[in-house]
């Protein structure tokens, strides 16, 4: 009996869906827009995160030492820093390497090269290049160095510039995210209202049947369930359409993203492929929750079973 009832409920939901075709069409369109907005937000997030992590990879702190400081002392500083959990990597550039790099960098500038020749010995000191575990690490690293016994032998450090740069990127990324969330919330709200209205109209369209159902002893679950199923059907179809639009759209925009972010590897296609189930699964679940919520409000209000 339960199976029979289940199929009848599905059939009533299906009939309701087609009976108000244009209303169903509008509802699905709005839900598709909601899905696409959320996907657009995810794409922006992927781009922002890839950019930030690429920049983070390039950011490091350089500690410049007096040229009089001995190599053993610098090795000691290196060992000291390497033990710290906020530090990912410490690389030493000796005074000789520093000079070699400097010469290579200014090989076309004769004045600088001549000036170097006039100096006695190597004017440059060794440098320690430090990579932090995260952006937040650099501030801590600076404090560690300042508070350590090695602070006197460090001539200079360039960490403030990196920090400001990362802060700007993160600020832009968080603003983009916030804007995206506002837009997505707006669409979620619109979806709630539209689904509510669709179910309300569906109830109105079925009012004769509902009256007769009540009259002949249909139970409340049998009367109200088709409306829930109908709204879940909207969510499911909209999700399918969203997948059909999003995946080809990603294939289309990927070359443009790649050419725009030349030095940064941003692969939105792979991201969606890897996280396909998670992205669309959660979206479907979320939209179903919206549909069930707005349907239940409409049913409570307009379907007095």
């Amino acid at each position: 009996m339960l199976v029979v009832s289940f199929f009848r409920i599905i059939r009533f939901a299906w009939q309701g869906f087609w009976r108000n075709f244009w209303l169903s069409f509008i509802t699905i369109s709005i839900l598709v827009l909601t899905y696409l907005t959320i996907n657009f937000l995810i794409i922006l997030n992927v781009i922002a995160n890839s950019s930030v992590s690429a920049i983070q990879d390039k950011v490091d702190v350089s500690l410049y030492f007096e040229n009089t400081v001995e190599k053993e002392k610098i090795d000691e500083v290196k060992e000291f820093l390497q033990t710290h959990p906020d530090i990912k990597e410490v690389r030493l550039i000796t005074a000789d390497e520093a000079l070699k790099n400097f010469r290579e960098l200014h090989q076309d500038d004769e004045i600088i090269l001549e000036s170097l020749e006039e100096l006695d010995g190597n004017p440059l000191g060794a440098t320690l290049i430090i990579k932090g575990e995260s952006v937040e690490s650099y501030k801590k690293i600076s404090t560690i160095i300042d508070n350590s016994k090695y602070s006197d032998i460090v001539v200079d450090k360039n960490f403030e510039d990196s920090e400001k740069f990362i802060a700007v990127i993160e600020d832009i990324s968080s603003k983009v995210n916030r804007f995206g969330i506002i837009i997505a919330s707006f669409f979620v709200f619109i979806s709630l209202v539209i689904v509510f209205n669709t179910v309300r109209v569906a109830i109105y369209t079925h009012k004769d049947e509902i009256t007769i159902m009540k009259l002949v002893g249909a139970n409340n679950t049998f009367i109200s369930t088709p409306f829930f199923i109908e709204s879940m059907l909207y969510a499911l179809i909209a999700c399918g359409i969203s997948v059909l639009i999003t995946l080809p759209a990603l294939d289309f925009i990927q070359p443009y993203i790649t050419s725009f972010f030349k030095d940064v590897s941003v692969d939105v296609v792979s991201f969606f492929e890897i996280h396909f189930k998670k992205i669309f699964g959660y979206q479907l679940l979320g939209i179903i929750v919206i549909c069930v919520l707005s349907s239940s409000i409409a049913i409570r209000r307009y379907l007095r079973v």
Partner: protein
Amino acid sequence: MIVLKNVTKLYSPGSLALSNINIHIKPKEFVSLVGISGTGKTTLVKVITAEERVTQGQVIIGGWDITRIKPHRVPYLRRQVGVVYQDFKLLKKKTVYENVAFAMQVSDASVSRIKRIVPQVLKIVGLEDKSDRYPIQLSGGEQQRVAIARALVHAPKILVADEPTGNLDKIHSKEIVDLLLKINNIGTTVLFVSHDPSLVNYVKKRVITLEPNTDGIGFDQKVGKYKL
């Protein structure tokens, strides 16, 4: 069996629909309920079908006290009390067969049971040869017979007919009353609500008269006439 004990229904303060009504209808009885507009006939039908709750008193249907019936139990009551109305309440886009089958479909009936029962009730109401017609292709009397067939699919112990002839001419009205008598002869308790004296007098069965602004019912005649 329908028992109403000291039933009072107040819609809002000052809007008294039923006052201290006591009615006892035995199983297999045919009772005509009459009264002018505003005496509470329809309210009484709604109380019996649990569409309305009484303000005071007790309502027992087939031995089941439905005075404070829980909403989820109402559908089970409605399967035991068939109801037909003046406006037929048929689905225009469904055929006669589908209209009757619909009542069973929404009540968990199996396909085989539907196929067995629907032709039987259509035969009782004399519409077995019009099962594929749509309501618009039927006369008023035939449409009311479809509504009666639909009310009978659950084999109810009680059939309440609320002004079933209100939209019909005299000939069709008489046909409907004959059908109700036939259903009563099969063993179903029938409560026939009407304001048509000729039909009530034609039946020659018990008549309960509701009177306006009266505490209790007006008259209860064992083999009565329309008395107003």
